[in-house]
């Protein structure tokens, strides 16, 4: 099966007063139909910028300086604005972190779902409304016939995110980008939303790019993980491999710095000290060609400070590091 989204050597730069600053460098990954890739990293790592680049929504001053973004073989990075607008909401769509600000408060949710259908699929008002009700039912909103005439503020946070998902999936897009879709929701609701996303994905066969800062929360629904650091992909591979045998010191640190819940018998033991990653992500324009993590890395030595790290690995598991940590560490 060929990939729905195939990104090769994507480089995004920011035009700043002293010159051009790289934001994303040589990013490559692909997602097949019905599969999910998670982009993981701290804020400032370029996760959201990647999403905006794919959608063609980069803010002013940012531009794609190299590489390609192929959506079913078509390079969207080179498409003019009109053609991109045709794709957005139709063949690719996006859901955001905060559904309250992503939904227009002066239209009913029905209007907002129907709009995409009428725009992209030329449906009549009546058919679009029926499809919108069907979508609300599909995202498990109770009494969709009544809720379709509700305004966003009349719904709870979880409901709003369901509406966002219904909107995003109304045109059965080939690609869905979800930017931290559950961060603003309660923990017991987060699980519901992830379950829903996966069900809808199996139904439609959409490829999903899931942006998150919490790897373990999304582990159940992702197939692959790409860890970003300071605008570069530093480790990539199947979810289970990344979670259980991370090799890059940053990935290992990221996993170890989250306090993992210990249940049952394990709960009786005292907590082990949390591992912390000192310092913070270097700002834009402070990133040289060398490993961006070296200043915070406890293993950095010798070659780390002399040359960019090589990308090594077996099969689908790739890591860009001079000192990848095997099982031993």
């Amino acid at each position, binding site marked *: 099966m060929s990939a729905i989204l195939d990104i090769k050597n994507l480089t995004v730069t920011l035009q700043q007063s002293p010159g051009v600053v790289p934001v994303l460098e040589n990013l490559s990954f692909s997602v097949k139909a019905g599969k999910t890739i998670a982009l993981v990293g701290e804020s400032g790592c370029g996760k959201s910028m990647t999403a905006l680049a794919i959608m063609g929504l980069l803010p002013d001053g940012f531009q794609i300086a190299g590489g390609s973004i192929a959506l079913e073989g078509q390079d969207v990075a080179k498409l003019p604005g009109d053609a991109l607008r045709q794709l957005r909401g139709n063949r690719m769509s996006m859901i955001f972190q905060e559904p309250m600000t992503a939904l227009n408060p002066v239209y009913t949710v029905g209007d907002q779902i129907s709009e995409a259908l009428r725009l992209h699929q030329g449906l009549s008002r009546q058919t679009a409304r029926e499809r919108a009700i069907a979508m609300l039912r599909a995202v498990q909103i109770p009494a969709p016939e009544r809720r379709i005439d509700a305004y966003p503020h009349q719904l709870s*946070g979880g409901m709003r995110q369901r509406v966002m998902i219904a909107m995003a999936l109304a045109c059965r897009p080939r690609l869905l980008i979800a930017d931290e879709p559950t961060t603003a929701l309660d923990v*017991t609701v987060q699980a519901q939303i992830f379950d829903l996303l996966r069900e809808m994905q199996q139904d439609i066969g959409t490829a999903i790019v899931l942006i998150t800062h919490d790897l373990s929360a999304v582990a*159940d629904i992702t197939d692959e993980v790409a860890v970003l650091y300071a605008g570069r992909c530093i480790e990539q591979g199947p979810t289970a491999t990344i979670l259980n045998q991370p090799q890059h010191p940053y990935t290992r640190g990221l996993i170890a710095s989250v306090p993992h819940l210990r249940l049952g018998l394990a709960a009786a033991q005292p907590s082990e000290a*949390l591992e*912390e990653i000192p310092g913070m992500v270097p700002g834009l324009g402070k990133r040289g060609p060398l490993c961006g993590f070296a200043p915070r890395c406890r293993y950095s030595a010798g070659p780390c400070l002399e040359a960019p790290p090589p990308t090594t690995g077996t099969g689908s598991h790739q890591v860009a590091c001079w000192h990848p940590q095997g099982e031993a560490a």
Partner: protein
Amino acid sequence: MSNDTLLEVNDLKVHFPAGRAGAFGQRLTVHAVDGVSFRVPRQSTFGIVGESGSGKSTTAQAIMRLAPITAGNIRLGETDLTTLRGDALRKARRHFQMIFQDPYSALNPRRRAGDLIREPLDLLEVGSADDRAERLESLLRVVGLPPEAAMLFPHQFSGGQRQRLVIARALSTQPDLIVCDEPVSALDVAIQAQILNLLKRLQRDHGLTYVFISHDLGVVQYLCDQIAVMYLGQIVEQAPSAQLFAGPRHPYTWSLMTAAAPPGGLRQSLKQRFSLRGEPPSPINPPAGCRFAARCPFADERCRKETPQLSVAGSGHFVACHKTEEVSAAGRSIMAAA
């Protein structure tokens, strides 16, 4: 009150008016906190977990005397905080301080970091001017910031550094109690660990007592000795940390644990039994009976009619549930199978 209890909260209620249902309708009241009692021993950490609307943050604000208290009382050591007013309250504040959730909004953007850290000292007139300058320097060192940081403005710091400033400020008056309201939820994961470790170290070095509010069970388990689980303004389960996570007795605690469990087979089987439908209902005029009944996978007729009382379920373990035997048995069998 035993000697080693620092904070005692008795039947605390915080109700807010929420307008009327229609122009001439019935008065609406938000029951944000509705009868909460607990004790926190000195130098320990008391965790409060729950979802939005559970009243955990309002409880924190009530302890800080930042929210109006409708009923109940709060004692800090020998002082009844509930009856303090005006200058007496202001003076008492040096003994209890707060760490806020969002370090971006908790620091006045117009003042320098140094002034912000010593503001409590200046306001409460603690020590001489020289003492305060000295104290500022040592506070910065304690939270891991360079002395030059004192001259900067909040916007010149990163999120993690700002939270260090907030912590330094809370420490300045050498309080007995620090109320932490979701102190790491606005921070990046890698930074969260730095702050959590700092809080742990400060507790050890300065003999602090924490009330720690969070929605993240992993964080709570890492830091807390006692944990109370709140739902719609009430404590539904409370136990020592180890005991709670070894075997919760309330279905809501189980569902929180399910959501936070490490990915894998156990999480999947817990989800089968304990995952919840719907969202927390509004705390405006909450329903009769068990407030959790509408979302509870175990609820029956009795739960919808009779309000369960918080009762003893083990040493230091309290639970408010009619079906606690059934719930614990279901949980135990899943944990045993894993």
